[in-house]
């Protein structure tokens, strides 16, 4: 935490990392989300990292039930959730137990004294009370009886003690908003709207929020020092909002639908963590041309999307790792029948059920190669929450232009992570209107565009274009079923060449940080963007000739990628998996790329990558 003192009352900070941690039922995600909104409104750049357990309500007070929300915000360009925490808000002993290890030495920990009961200490596995045994000596500890202060604040609302107790998170939020000089207007409005049907709850929550804030304002805080100021980040003019990766994908798909000039998107999904949020987001947006369909299983979901594509709509399905496995056969059908399809995979830690709420990048090889037979398709990956918008549009463009399934790789981190987004001028987004075949003369369903090799898209309902397609091999020249050996070889080549040809229709690979040659290329893809970026900057600052190359296109690769990589002495590939992109790069370009791999269900720390670069 870089700092300069500006006044005795408030110290200035360039950037700060706060983590709110408590029981799954303590409302930490809401608290973090509200702090995020207020921080965005205050003009800071930010990145968030919600980290919650798979259990909806794990037994109270246990370490495995701890839910946390981390936010990194600042007056500077913020690209990661932060390696180390500056302020830890621990609502109970279990949260302290789990999250203390990430607090930097000298950092601040705010604890709710009222929750540090013998029973809770025992549940968290503390033999002695850490607030008394000196184990927190290297931190600044704010011991506040948040429970009692909250109960006092909401007394007038007449809530039962259980409900009153649940206002603790708003008290803690109020204090943190004070500490960083944030407004709380938006949150007050939000509480009133959320509890419109129960005004006493709205009133109690607002009272707790105000009480936490007032506690900071009054002399009661002075013994602990000061509040902080974090200046606005210097950003381009425009209208902004915070956006999560999931929201950005939803809106990007809608923008893609428009850009393609299609009337309707059929979005079919089956509930699965962490992908369900996309289904929820789009379910509310029927007015914008999307029809959502909660199917009976993952197979039906992709099947409905394929059927919709056949009928001339934009077919989209979304899932996470295990669901992706179930969709595999249908992907093969979409490849064989050459239908446009967008498949969003919010990757999570695996194999099998794995760790459903934790991020990983371990479905890359599955996306690129994971089907029976030679079954190529296009694979894209989003780097940041805001990048999800552009990548979703690009997925729609490639799917409809090349009549192919496109897999869009996101992950559990991107799905929930939020950051400020300058809302683009929608009139200036790319347009790529679909031209359905309507002319019967000379038609057959596998007539290919000589340039893209895409087959004609002929919608049922069009007179004179009645045709049959299916999973059986087709004759190249007529579209009829064919078992001819030479024809199968020709069709296999055609399918591969079509996807390979996309490389001529995408931007050349650029370098995100650094030069296009040098000592070390750090090559990443997906949500590791921020951590790699900062690590490379740090390395360059320290005099290392490093560059950051981040891939959006994973199948096919940009056509200059091989040549670019060969201009570096060393190629380092950090990934949240056991080494997948590194294999693809080595196999494709025969470069001696080396992996840097982390599979802990957590994002990279900047320091972990920076160390590997050295």
């Amino acid at each position: 935490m870089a700092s300069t003192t500006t006044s005795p009352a408030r110290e200035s900070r360039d950037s700060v990392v706060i983590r709110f941690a408590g029981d799954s039922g303590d409302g930490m995600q809401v608290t973090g989300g509200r702090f995020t909104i207020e921080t965005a409104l205050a003009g800071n750049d930010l990145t968030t990292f919600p980290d919650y357990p798979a259990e909806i309500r794990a037994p109270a007070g246990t370490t495995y039930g701890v839910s946390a929300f981390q936010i990194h915000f600042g007056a500077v360009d913020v690209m990661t959730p932060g390696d180390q925490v500056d302020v830890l808000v621990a609502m109970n002993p279990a949260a302290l137990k789990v999250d203390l290890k990430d607090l930097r030495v000298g950092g601040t920990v705010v604890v709710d004294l009222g929750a540090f009961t013998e029973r809770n200490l025992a549940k968290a596995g503390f033999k002695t009370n850490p607030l008394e045994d000196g184990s927190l000596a290297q931190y600044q500890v704010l011991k506040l009886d948040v429970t009692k202060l909250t109960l006092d604040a909401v007394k007038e609302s007449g809530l039962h003690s259980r409900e009153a107790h649940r206002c603790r998170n708003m008290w803690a939020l109020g204090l943190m908003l004070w500490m960083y000089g944030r407004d709380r207007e938006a949150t007050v409005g939000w509480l009133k709207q959320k509890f419109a049907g129960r005004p006493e709850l709205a009133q109690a929550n607002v009272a707790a929020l105000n009480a936490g804030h007032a506690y900071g304002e009054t002399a009661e805080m002075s013994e602990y020092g000061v509040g902080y100021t974090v200046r606005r980040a210097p950003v381009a003019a425009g209208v902004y909002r915070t956006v999560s990766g999931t929201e950005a994908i939803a809106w990007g798909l809608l923008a893609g639908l428009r850009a393609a000039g299609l009337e309707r998107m059929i979005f079919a999904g089956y509930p699965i963590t962490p992908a369900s949020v996309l289904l929820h987001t789009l379910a509310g947006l029927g007015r914008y041309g999307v029809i959502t369909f909660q199917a009976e299983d993952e197979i039906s979901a992709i099947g409905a999307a394929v059927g919709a594509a056949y009928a001339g709509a934009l077919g989209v399905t979304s899932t996470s790792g295990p669901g992706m496995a179930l969709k595999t056969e249908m992907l093969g059908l979409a490849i064989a029948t050459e239908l446009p399809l967008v498949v969003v995979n919010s990757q999570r830690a695996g194999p099998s059920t794995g760790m459903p709420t934790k991020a990983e990048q371990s479905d890359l090889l599955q996306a690129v190669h994971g089907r029976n037979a030679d079954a190529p398709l296009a694979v894209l990956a989003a780097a940041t929450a805001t990048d999800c918008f552009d990548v979703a549009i690009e997925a729609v463009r490639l799917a409809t232009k090349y009549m192919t399934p496109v897999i869009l790789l996101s992950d559990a981190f991107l799905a929930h992570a939020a950051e400020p987004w300058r809302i683009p001028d929608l009139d200036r987004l790319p347009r790529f209107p679909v031209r359905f075949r309507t002319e019967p003369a000379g038609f057959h369903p596998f007539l290919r565009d000589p340039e893209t090799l895409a087959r004609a898209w002929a919608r049922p309902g069009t007179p004179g274009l009645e045709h049959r397609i299916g999973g059986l091999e087709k004759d190249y020249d007529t579209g009829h079923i064919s078992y001819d050996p030479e024809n199968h070889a020709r069709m296999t080549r055609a399918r591969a060449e079509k996807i390979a040809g996309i490389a001529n229709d995408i931007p050349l690979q650029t370098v995100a940080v650094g030069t296009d040659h040098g000592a070390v290329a750090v090559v990443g893809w997906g949500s590791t963007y921020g951590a790699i970026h900062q690590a490379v900057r740090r390395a360059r600052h320290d005099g290392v000739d490093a560059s950051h190359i981040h891939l959006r296109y994973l199948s096919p690769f940009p056509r200059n990628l091989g040549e670019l990589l060969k201009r570096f002495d060393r190629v380092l590939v950090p990934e949240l998996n056991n080494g997948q992109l590194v294999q693809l790069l080595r196999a494709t370009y025969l470069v001696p790329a080396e992996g840097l791999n982390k599979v802990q269900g957590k994002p990279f720390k900047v320091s972990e990558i920076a160390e590997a670069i050295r």
Partner: protein
Amino acid sequence: MTVTTITDAELQPKDYASDQEVRWCPGCGDYAILKAVHKAMAEVGARRERTVVVSGIGCAARFPYYMSTYGFHTIHGRAPAIATGIKLANPELDVWVMTGDGDGLSIGGNHMLHVLRRNVDLQIVLFNNEIYGLTKGQYSPTSRRGTKSPSTPRGSVDYPVSACAFALGSGARFVARSVDTLQAHLVGVLQRAHAHRGASFVEVFQNCVVFNDGAFENFTAKDGAADTQLHVEHGKPLIFGARRDRGLRLTPGKLELEVVTLSEGGVTPADLVVHDETNRGLAHLLVALEPPGFPVALGVIYCNPAPSFEALVHAQAGAAGAGRPTPDLAELLMAKEGTWTVR
């Protein structure tokens, strides 16, 4: 592929046939079903450009290639899912699903359950030959116990599923049955299925001449068919028999049907159950009838329409934006709380 554009509205059955050579085994019951579908389409005046035939995998699933309509030969068991997507994308299309006992009730059983429960407006024709034909003769989920096949050389031990009972149990609102060799009957049933808005489930007993020849001989043989088949008609008493002298009545004091002979023991037509297509309980009793004690019920066993899934979904989506064109995306991004302006 030759493209023929017929401008004459009056299409003949042959106009629904594609130019592809049909490749089922000689004598296969599928030929008769194909003919009946061509005929039914001509009878209802189906428009080829609006008709889509979707299938999964199996002998029955080759069906789309022999139609001059739009067609999609998909993957094993998944035709209902793909057909659902087609109807959601374009409810105007007239969609048929052609499936078999393995495709529709084994690998695709889950999709069948849900497409029926949702009541998607489709005609689902299940060719039941009680065997896996395309994979060379393994027993299927509708095979009777003791069926000897390459995978059950000592006879199958598991209990079969009844296609129509499954459909009723899944919430189907149109359930009918026919036989490949009853051409006129089958055409009539298919027309009724087409007229029904919502999921129409038609089980066709279909003879596999190669792997399960004569499986339904006990009630489809011309000799004695009058005594082994009960052709149900809405509003008419359940009568069968060569002399039309036998019928079904409810056993007094029990919820079960029994065969009675008219004029024996004072039984009159008034004692017989009158077929009511809208009575689900009766439908359950009818589909359970089996030889030798009972005739096999054929015809429209249950028809009780309700709004179809895709119609409800579209009505809801339309209502959400009622009275206005599709709004601008900018409005969505700008309007919600939490935006701020940097100058």
